[in-house]
């Protein structure tokens, strides 16, 4: 990759329970602008923790994370400003149940980007159209299917016009017949040039869309490379064992 680095992670460590549990044991990685990085690995290997450290939902125990040239682990940094530029999509959608779809999407742009209601709603309706949900603008989350909820969660994050999108197992809580519609939205986003870090068990998606695959185990990046390198020519025994199990 010759493009600019947008997120740079150096020697990241995260401990839980006063150091008893080391979820991340020295992780370093660069995410480049426009790149799609897929993180795979067994359950409990630290994938979510790694992703959640990127926008400081988890505070790193050690190490440095630079986003757009700013060291966001510096306590003097106002993380709220940087989070606006990092969208996040969760396994369990986390839509706000007491607000309509439209309000879910316009709340943050109106409060943080100081957009007028009209501008925010215009932007939201445009995005809803792109995921074929413009007719659900006034629905409440409880009235949507899982696939619809996750597509709304994605466009809610996009309303803030982020530079990076972080996905933590976005299809793991979905019924199988709804996985496709969410992956399709993500593929289109990738094609449009969005920088994405995706934790997923969808190996087909990783093969097709990823520029780079990171394989994590026991809190470390064990191996990384292009999808072809990882899936067809894995070098590490742990990677081979994992792929044998899931493929």
């Amino acid at each position, binding site marked *: 990759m010759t493009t600019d680095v947008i997120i740079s992670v150096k020697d990241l460590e995260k401990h839980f329970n006063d150091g008893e549990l080391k979820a991340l044991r020295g992780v370093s990685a660069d995410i480049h602008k426009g790149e799609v990085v897929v993180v795979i690995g067994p359950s409990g290997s630290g994938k979510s923790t790694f992703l959640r450290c990127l926008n400081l*939902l988890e505070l790193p125990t050690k190490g440095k994370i630079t986003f757009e040239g700013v060291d966001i682990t510096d*306590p003097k940094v106002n993380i709220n*400003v940087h989070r606006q530029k990092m969208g996040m999509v969760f396994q369990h959608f986390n839509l*706000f*149940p*007491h607000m309509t779809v439209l309000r879910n999407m316009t*709340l943050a742009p109106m409060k943080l980007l100081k957009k007028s209601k009209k501008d925010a709603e215009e932007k939201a309706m445009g995005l809803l159209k792109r995921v074929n949900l413009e007719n659900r603008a006034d629905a*409440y989350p409880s009235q949507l299917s899982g696939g619809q909820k996750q597509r709304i969660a994605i466009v809610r994050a996009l309303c803030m016009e982020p530079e990076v999108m972080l996905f933590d197992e976005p299809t793991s809580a979905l019924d199988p017949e709804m996985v496709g519609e969410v992956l399709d939205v993500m593929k289109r986003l990738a094609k449009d040039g969005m920088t994405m870090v995706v934790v997923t068990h969808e190996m087909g998606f990783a093969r097709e869309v990823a520029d780079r695959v990171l394989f994590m185990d026991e809190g470390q990046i064990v191996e990384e490379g292009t999808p072809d390198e990882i899936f067809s020519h894995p070098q590490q025994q742990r990677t081979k064992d994992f792929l044998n199990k899931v493929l």
Partner: protein
Amino acid sequence: MIFEQWWEAIQPALQSNTLNFWQTIYKEIYLNVIKEGRWLNYLQGLGKTLEVSVFAILVGLFLGTILAILRLPEIKDMNARGKGGLKQVGAAIVRFLSKIAGGYINLMRGTPLLLQVLLINFGVFGSIRIEKIIIGVIACGLNSAAYVAEIVRGGIMSVEKGQTEAGRSLGLSGFQTMMYIVLPQAAKSALPAMCNEFISLIKETSVLSYIALTELTKAGDYIRSRTFSAFTPYIVSGLLYLIVTLTLTTLIGKLERRLRNSDH
């Protein structure tokens, strides 16, 4: 007036001590409610009870919500990031306030309301001329805040952690996330318990009769001192309390159903 005519009509029976059941009831009602416009005493008492209750509920809600937030685990164990001196001091102050809030809640819930009312009336405001109704609002509001705090805290903790994370990941501050995302959902799940709290508060304002505030209980007691009827004045006051509390229960039940239908 028809009431006077009926009163005249039962006079012979009253003189000869031969009142039948219905005549006895009417005598009680006439003496304790109608005569000398006594119904006005109850209504004025009811007015004071409602006035104290409404303002005490507002004080309790406001202060209770702040106490609840101070008692949240994130606040209780707040640690400043890094070693910035000012931030460390700020975090230490917040942790200290959290301890005070905890102590306050235990103190208010662990001592009788009447004792608190007397202390505030004779102790705190002993040498200051101040309306009894304001003392009532302060005492009942401060007391209610402790109960509200526990209810709101339960409500906040019942909101999934993912809701806060979603709010924060969009860039909303902790305060904005609390105001727009967590508290509205917490309020909904806390509504039944909150309804109970409002009802107890309304009833418990009756202890204010001890500091000579003529609220609804005191009004009934005053009528008893004039008519020497041992039952009727209290029953009239009680019925008025019931009307208020049942109306409140119905209204909040309706609100709950509407919230249930609107989402989830």
